[in-house]
């Protein structure tokens, strides 16, 4: 492969150029943005594929999620009947219906996590970031301590204390979300607090509540929004994980993670029981990730690449 100076070759080191000329040499900036927009559309479509049926669960379910049918156990998926679209499980329950209703629990729980954890975390971050000083320092050290526990460990510990149930799972995952929100909001609050126009505002006698609501909160919003899209995905995964481990929703309540766990025992003879709930979960999370990525690009124009 003889590269010639006149022909395009692999890019490396090209872009170390002066400002004006560099703008010419970076034609891909706009192309990347278009790609991001396309990702956004794909993400929304994926989300719609999952969320719309879940929302319409009662309409799309010929039978209930708990309706057992001893004569129709472990039916393979078939398109003849809506009930058996995704087959049936060991109790003859329609996997399709359970996936739809399970989605309500899974997605609903993750929304609860984000609302509770996000609000608490944001509040904590605002206080710590705005007040600073000893109070802020102590709050952030507690935040650091909570963040010292990797991944799902803290949530597991909390469910160990509180006992297995969907509510406790939501609390457990929310507790993990709080320090993450707090850290991000605290950073933003600290920065905004020192901006010239905010200091001017304080000098003019504006009270802390006014400052926080009018200046700090709006400034921290982009970061919070990005974090929320990320956490909607993470939360639904972790709720499902806890459900899978038997520490979340208790049977017979349908929830995607718990359903996968149910299906694991009969994996070799009835793969559909475990696969479909997980598939919906995966599609939902991929959709959220794509949307979140595009949002992050929109809100953080200086961030490049991943």
């Amino acid at each position, binding site marked *: 492969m003889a590269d010639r100076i006149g022909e395009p070759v*692999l890019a490396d080191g090209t872009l170390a150029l002066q400002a004006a000329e560099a703008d010419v040499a970076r034609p891909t900036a706009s192309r990347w943005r278009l790609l991001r927009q396309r990702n956004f559309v794909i993400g929304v479509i994926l989300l719609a594929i999952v969320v719309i049926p879940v929302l319409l669960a009662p309409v799309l379910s010929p039978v209930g999620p708990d309706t057992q049918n001893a004569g129709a156990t472990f039916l393979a998926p078939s398109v003849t009947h809506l009930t058996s679209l995704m087959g049936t499980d060991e109790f003859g329950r329609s996997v399709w219906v359970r996936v739809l209703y399970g989605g309500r629990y899974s997605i609903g729980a993750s929304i609860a996590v984000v609302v509770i954890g996000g609000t608490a975390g944001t509040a904590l971050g605002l206080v710590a970031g705005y007040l600073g000083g000893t109070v802020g320092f102590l709050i952030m050290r507690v935040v650091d301590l909570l963040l010292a526990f990797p991944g799902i460990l803290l949530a597991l510990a909390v469910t160990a204390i509180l006992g297995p149930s969907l509510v406790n799972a939501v609390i457990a995952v929310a507790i993990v979300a709080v320090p993450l929100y707090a850290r991000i909001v605290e950073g933003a609050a600290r920065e905004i607090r020192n901006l010239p126009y905010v200091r001017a505002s304080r000098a003019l006698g504006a009270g802390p509540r006014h400052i926080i609501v009018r200046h700090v909160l709006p400034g921290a919003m982009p970061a919070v929004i990005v974090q929320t899209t990320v956490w909607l995905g993470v939360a639904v995964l972790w709720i499902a994980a806890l459900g899978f481990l038997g520490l979340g929703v208790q049977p017979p309540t349908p929830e995607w*993670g718990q359903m996968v766990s149910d299906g694991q025992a009969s994996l070799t003879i009835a793969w559909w029981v475990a696969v479909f709930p997980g598939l919906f979960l995966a599609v939902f999370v991929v959709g959220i990730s794509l949307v979140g990525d595009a949002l992050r690009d929109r809100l953080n124009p200086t961030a490049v690449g991943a």
Partner: protein
Amino acid sequence: MFYVGKRLLALVVLLVAISILVFLMLQLIPGSPVSALLGQSATNPAAVARLTQELGLNRPLPVQYWRWLDGVLHGNLGYSYQNQQPVSVLIGQNLPSTLALAGAGLLISLVGGILLGAVAAVRRDTPADSVTMGIAMTLVALPSFWLGLILILVFAVALPVFPVFGGSGLRGLVLPAFTLGLGVLGITARFVRSSLLEVMDSPHVVAARAKGLNRRTVFLKHIARNALLPVVTIIGLQIGSLLSGAVLVEMVFSRPGIGRLLVQSILNKDYATVQATVLIIAAFYAVTNLVVDLLYPVLDPRIGGA
């Protein structure tokens, strides 16, 4: 030297804080700690009395903490009445398996992530770039427990290449390691890509080419080495994800390990084991992060210098 000292001190403080938090966990469990620890045997008054004496529950809380910490530092992690064994033995039996799993997962995520990220960076803005990053994003979004089941279905059931459950030695490690590693691989790939792009655009690369170095030398000596440096920073985070993910993977594959031990202890209300396991995992994560931190000055002359 100051760099090292500062971080060692921070680690010690963190470990102490973690131990306090874990200790308090036991106090938060509904009912008395004694009945929590004894579980079924809680009805035996002699056992209750003995344990009460042992734990010094009639003493103030800080003293109890001190006694517990002292025990931990001497290797006494409590006793699991459910398993009729000292917890330290249980952990000793299970830890190596988890370490092997996490190690294999780390290897897969690093090798795969670097390859994928490098392909995307070198062929930036081509379809290859979009495809590899799309794969990376999807991998991150997939629920690991579901991915594990899919891998089992494909590689153990449909194509009987690997054992379905358990499986010892190397063959039994493959599917679980891949399940664990693939999710983390996605994050690594995106990071490697952006790191490479940043380095590829930097002036010293153009300068290296201007010296007359061939493309391969420039890539290996001036791009790759500089780009992989930031990757070290996320290895610490990856280990956290791996430890956290190991919990789920061990449950999916019924593989012995710390993760499975933790989950089973929670389900069995074996709080002594839960407490010790959480402590060990969190401590391990903290120490690992320190080790990674200490690598920076070795790899990057700009950091921690005199």
